[in-house]
């Protein structure tokens, strides 16, 4: 690269700097030997950051597994519970039967397929869901009734201010065929 004017000045300054650095540079053999010694040094077996990261990863995996398992268990009953009562499939008596009855039939009759644990679990889950739905429905009904009674018996807080002892007079009208004496009773400050 051809240098002109200022560039030459800069070049001179840099070459001065290089000379100074060369004088104070550490020897190659010393640096190389130190690097070799570092290479031969046994590595620390326990790396704290690596261990922490691994522990964190394991924790995350375990919690994910637990959550997915829990979610799978709770998903089915929830779906049934949310559905309206009519949608809930009717259970056959055989399905409703307790677990003890579901056990294999005597050997003389037609051999029935033994109910698996999964099937039993499904039936009990459905029953539980149905019971839960019924309880929820009852609760809703009771709440609605409570609300209705509260609304019908509601009174304005200022209703008492509107009532007065002369309510009867104000609310009644004199009849045309009433006697004069009776009519006088409507007049204020008249001795009866």
């Amino acid at each position, binding site marked *: 690269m051809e240098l002109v004017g*200022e560039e030459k000045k800069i070049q001179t300054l*840099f070459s001065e*700097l290089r000379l100074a650095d060369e004088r104070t540079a550490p020897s190659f053999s010393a*640096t*190389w030997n130190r690097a070799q010694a570092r290479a031969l040094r046994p590595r620390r077996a326990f790396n704290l950051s690596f261990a922490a990261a691994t522990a964190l990863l394991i924790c995350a995996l375990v919690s994910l597994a637990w959550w997915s398992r829990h979610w799978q268990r709770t998903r089915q009953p929830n779906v049934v519970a949310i559905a309206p009562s009519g949608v809930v499939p009717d259970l056959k008596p055989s399905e409703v039967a307790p677990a003890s009855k579901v056990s294999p039939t005597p050997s003389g009759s037609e051999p029935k397929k033994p109910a698996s644990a999964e099937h039993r679990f499904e039936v009990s889950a459905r029953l539980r869901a149905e019971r839960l739905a019924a309880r929820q429905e009852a609760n809703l009904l009771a709440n609605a009734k409570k609300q209705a009674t509260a609304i019908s018996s509601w009174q304005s807080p200022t209703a008492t201010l509107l009532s007065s002892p002369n309510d009867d007079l104000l609310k009644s009208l004199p009849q045309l065929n009433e006697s004069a004496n009776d009519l006088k009773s409507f007049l204020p400050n008249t001795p009866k």
Partner: protein
Amino acid sequence: MDIAELKAELETLHSASFGWALSCCRRDRGEAEDVLQTVYLKILEGKARFRGEAAFKTWLFAVIRKTAAGEYRRKLLRSLKLITGAEQTGDRASPEAGPGAAFEKSEIQIRFQRALKSLPARQREALHLVFYEDLSLREAADVMGISIGSARQHYERGKKRLRETLDTTEVAYGISWRRKENPNAV
């Protein structure tokens, strides 16, 4: 390239490598030594491998630059965590900081180094690679991992800024000298 050949090449380039490491570490001698040692270690362990895709010097300088950047990041993290930061900086006495070193340098050199430090890293690197290491702009671009156009821009801007900084320091020095000569002037 076997280890003996590598060693010979590294020995030839050792002083230039040290100069480049110094520039990458903002003229911190202790840190530059550490960086150079780490680079040799990387080469010994095979973490940094020369594949002949570029010139050996270019490759070595790129490794030094990356290692210095990594060390700088680690140092920054350490200082953020406040772990043994004070001890390390206290233990490592930079020869540059010593009074003897300062006396050895000429006043121009001191000003020049101050001006160099004030430059942005890329500009400083471009100037160093071209003027100190006698690399071409293309080689400098390879070392810095940027395009030749960017390298040229950094080089030109660096030159301009260096000149400006040197000019302003000259003016400032002039004023201070005049003030010293005649304190009752103002």
